[in-house]
C-alpha cells in the first residue's frame, strides 16, 4: 500500500493509524497473528483485516474500542513522538501552497528530519514528481529510508545520507533539476551556494528556508541576495486550534430572583432562630436538656431557588440550563515554530 493512494479495505501488511484517543494515534503495520495492546484492551490484528478503513473496532470483550484510520501525511505528523523538530501542518501546508508544489514538481529537502514533511511533499508531487531529501544524521537517515519504504514512497523519494552544507546536493543516480527547494538547516547560508548545480535552468525555482531565529533569517536573506535569488520575502505562520465550548448563560433576572429568595429565607431563618431561642428559654425554664432543630445533611441541602446550579457540579452543556456556544484555545498554545524565508531564482534566458 502507499500512503499516497486511498484504499477502502484493510489488508494484511497495510500501514494503518489506530485512533486510540485524541492525543494518541498509533501507526501499525497489520500482521496476521499480531495483537495491538492499548489501555482500552487488546485488539488482534486478524480482526482488522477485511474491515473498511474508518471502521470502529471493539475489543473482543467489548469493553473499549478504537478506530482504524487510513494514513495521511497529516495524521502521520500528528502521530509522531516529538523527538525532533517537526514541520507541522500550518507551516507545511502554506509552503506547499505558496511554492505551488503539485504533480510533477521536483523538490529538494534538507534535512529530512523526522520525514514528516517528506510525506506531504510526496503526496503533492505524485508519481511524476521527485523529492530529493538529504539527512546528515545517520540514525535518522536509516529510519527515514525504512519508513519511506514501508509507506510506499520509494517511487518518488530519493534519500541521501549527506551533509549538504559541505558536500552539496549532486547525486550520481539522476539529474536533480529541482524547481522547489526547502532548507530546514541550522545554517542554510552554507547550503545555498551549492544549489546552482542542481536547480532548473529553464524555469523559476522557489526556495523556502525554515529558521527559528531572527539572526538566521538575516544571514539567510543576505546569502540569498548574494547568490542571485530575488523576491526575497520573510513570513511567519501563526496558527491556532479552537475548541468549541459551552458557557452558561447566567441571566441577571435569575440572579435577582435568587437574591430575593435568599433574603426571604434569611428572614424566615431569623424568625426560626427566634422561635428556637424561645423554645430554648422555655426548655431552660423547664430545666429540660437542650433541644435542637435537626440540621439537614449537606448533600440533600435545600439550596432554595438555584437557577445556576450553585453548589453542585454542572456538566458543560447540561440540560436545564442555557448555554452560549463559545470557542477557546488550548491553555498552552504554540506561539512560534520558525520563520519562513522565501525567494525565487528565474533563469535569465537569452532569446
Amino acid at each position, binding site marked *: 500500500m502507499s500512503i*499516497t*493512494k*486511498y484504499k477502502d479495505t484493510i489488508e494484511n501488511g497495510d500501514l494503518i493509524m489506530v*485512533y486510540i*484517543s*485524541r492525543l494518541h494515534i498509533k501507526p501499525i503495520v497489520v500482521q496476521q497473528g499480531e495483537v495491538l495492546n492499548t489501555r*482500552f484492551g487488546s485488539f488482534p490484528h486478524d480482526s482488522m483485516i477485511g474491515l*473498511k*478503513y*474508518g*471502521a*470502529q473496532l*471493539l475489543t473482543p470483550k467489548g469493553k*473499549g*474500542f478504537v*478506530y*482504524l*484510520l*487510513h494514513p*495521511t501525511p497529516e495524521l502521520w505528523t500528528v502521530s509522531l513522538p516529538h523527538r525532533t523538530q517537526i514541520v507541522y501542518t*500550518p507551516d507545511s501546508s*502554506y509552503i*506547499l*501552497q*505558496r511554492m*505551488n508544489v*503539485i*504533480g*510533477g514538481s521536483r523538490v529538494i529537502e534538507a534535512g529530512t528530519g523526522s520525514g514528516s514533511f517528506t510525506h*506531504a511533499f510526496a*503526496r*503533492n508531487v505524485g508519481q511524476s514528481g521527485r523529492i530529493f531529501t538529504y539527512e546528515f544524521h545517520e540514525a535518522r537517515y536509516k529510519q527515514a529510508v525504512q519508513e519511506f519504504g514501508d509507506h510506499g514512497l520509494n517511487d518518488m523519494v530519493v534519500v541521501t545520507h549527506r551533509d549538504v552544507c559541505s558536500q552539496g546536493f549532486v547525486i550520481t543516480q539522476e539529474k536533480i533539476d529541482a524547481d522547489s527547494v526547502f532548507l530546514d538547516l541550522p545554517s542554510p547560508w552554507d547550503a545555498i551556494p551549492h544549489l546552482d548545480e542542481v536547480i532548473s535552468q*529553464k*524555469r*523559476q525555482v522557489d526556495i523556502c528556508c525554515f529558521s527559528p531565529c531572527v539572526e538566521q*533569517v538575516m544571514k539567510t536573506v*543576505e546569502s540569498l*541576495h548574494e547568490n542571485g535569488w*530575488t*523576491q*526575497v520575502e*520573510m*513570513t*511567519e*505562520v*501563526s*496558527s491556532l486550534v*479552537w*475548541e*468549541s465550548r*459551552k458557557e452558561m448563560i447566567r441571566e441577571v433576572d435569575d440572579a435577582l430572583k435568587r437574591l430575593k429568595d435568599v433574603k426571604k429565607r434569611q428572614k424566615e431563618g431569623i424568625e426560626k432562630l427566634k422561635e428556637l431561642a424561645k423554645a430554648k428559654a422555655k426548655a431552660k425554664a423547664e430545666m429540660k436538656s437542650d433541644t435542637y432543630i435537626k440540621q439537614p445533611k449537606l448533600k440533600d441541602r435545600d439550596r432554595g431557588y438555584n437557577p445556576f446550579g450553585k453548589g453542585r457540579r454542572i456538566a458543560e452543556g447540561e440540560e436545564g440550563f442555557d448555554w452560549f*456556544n*463559545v*470557542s477557546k484555545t488550548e491553555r498552552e498554545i504554540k506561539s512560534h515554530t520558525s*520563520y519562513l524565508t522565501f525567494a*525565487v531564482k*528565474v533563469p*535569465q*534566458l537569452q*532569446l
Partner: protein
Amino acid sequence: MNSSFSHEKGIIGYDDWAIITLPSSATKIVQMRKGGSISLGKFGTFKVDHIVGYAYGQSFEVLEGKDVLPLKSISYGLDDTSDTKDSTPALEFQSSEDNRDLLDTGSKVQKITAKEIEEMKKEGGGNDVGNKIIERIVQGHESFEKKTIYSQEKYLTRKQRKFSRRFTVRNMTPSNLLNHIRKDRDPNKLMGLSEETLGLMMSHANVMPGGNYLLMDDTGGLLVYAMLERMQGQGSITLIHENDQPKLVLLNRTNYSEEELYNMVKPINLLEFVDPGDNRPTIGPLPKEEVDSMPNIRRIKYLRRMKKVKQLNESLDMVEARAFDGLIYASTINPVTFVPRIIERMKGSRPIVVYNQFKEVLIGLSHIFLRDSRVLLPNIYESCVRQFQTIQGRLHPLVTSIGGGGYIFSGIRVLPIEGAVASGRRN
C-alpha cells in the same frame, strides 16, 4: 506550450493566462495573445511577442516602441539589498543627520503638481520617464534635504515603485490568482479566503491525484482550480451547487480546456445530491437512426446534452454508492444543518473540511460533531501569515495587512458500529 497545469508552464507561451505584477505591487490578469499588446496604464504598454519565450517569473522594463528589457528583478536597483550599492547613483542629495528640522505637513511641501507629472508621463518613453519624474519630485520637495538618509531612501523607493515602468510576469498559480483577488479586488469574492487557509484546506483534505472529492465552492471556482492543480487529471470533483449551474467564473482565467474540466468537474445541484434516485435525468439516448437523421445543429446540441446526462448519471451513481474520498465545503449555505447530511455520502477514514469566513458559524458545527460519533478529531483551525519587510537593517513585520482569512473546521469521517456505546470517544 499549451498544457493546462500551471506547473508545466515554465516558459511564457502564447494564449497563456498569466498575472502581471506592477511596481506598485498591484497585479493584473492578462492573456498572451499572439501579436497583441498589453497596457499597464501609467507603467506603459508592451507587445506580447517580446516576452514570450522567457521563463515565468521574469521581470522586464518597458522601453520605447512597446519593447521590453529583461531585468533580474522588478526591484533591481531599487531596494534589493545586494543591488543597492551600484544602483542609486542619483541618491546624491544633501541629507540631515536626523529629522529634527522637518515638519511633515503632507503634500504642502511638494511643489511639483500632479498635472505636471501627468504631462511628463504623456511625453512617453521608457523607464527614463520614471526616473525623470522622480528627479523632478525630489527637486520640488522643499524639505527633502532635511530628511534623514533613511527617510530619503524610503521616499525614493516609494516614488520609484510608483513611477518606474517595470513589471514581472507570473505563473497563474492558484496562490497568485487568490492574492490578485484578495489584495487588488475584493476579499469577499473569495469568502475572505487567504492563501494560508487555502493551503491548510488542501492539506487537511488530503487532496491528491485519484481522489474523488465532494465540493461546495462559493469562491467563484478558486477551490476547483486549486484542487485540479493537485489532482493532475486523475480522480473527480463532484461539485454541489444551488442554481442552474455552478458559478466558476475564475476558471475562465486559467489554462484548463472545456474538455479537461468536463472530465474532472461534475456539477450536481442540491436537489439531485440529496435525492439522487428521484432526480435522474429523464432524457434517455435516442435510437441511432434518429440521431443520424437530425439536422447538424440539433445533433450537436443533442450530443452535448447527452454528454451532460452521462456526467450527471455518473455523479448520481457515486452519491448513491457513498463513494467520496473527502468533503470540502466552502458555501454560504449553513453548514451546521447540511454537513451532517452530506457526510453520509463519504467513505470511511476520509477528511471533512468546512471553510467559513466566520468562526462563529463553525462553532455550531463543531458542537454538533462533538456529539456525533461519525466524526473524529473535530476541531477549528485558524492560520495566519505575517509578512516582514526584509530590507537590510530594517527588518520588521509589515505595518498593515489584510485582515481575516477565514477558519476551517476539520474532522475525519469514520464508521461507528451501530449501537456501540461511544463512552471512550472523547478521551
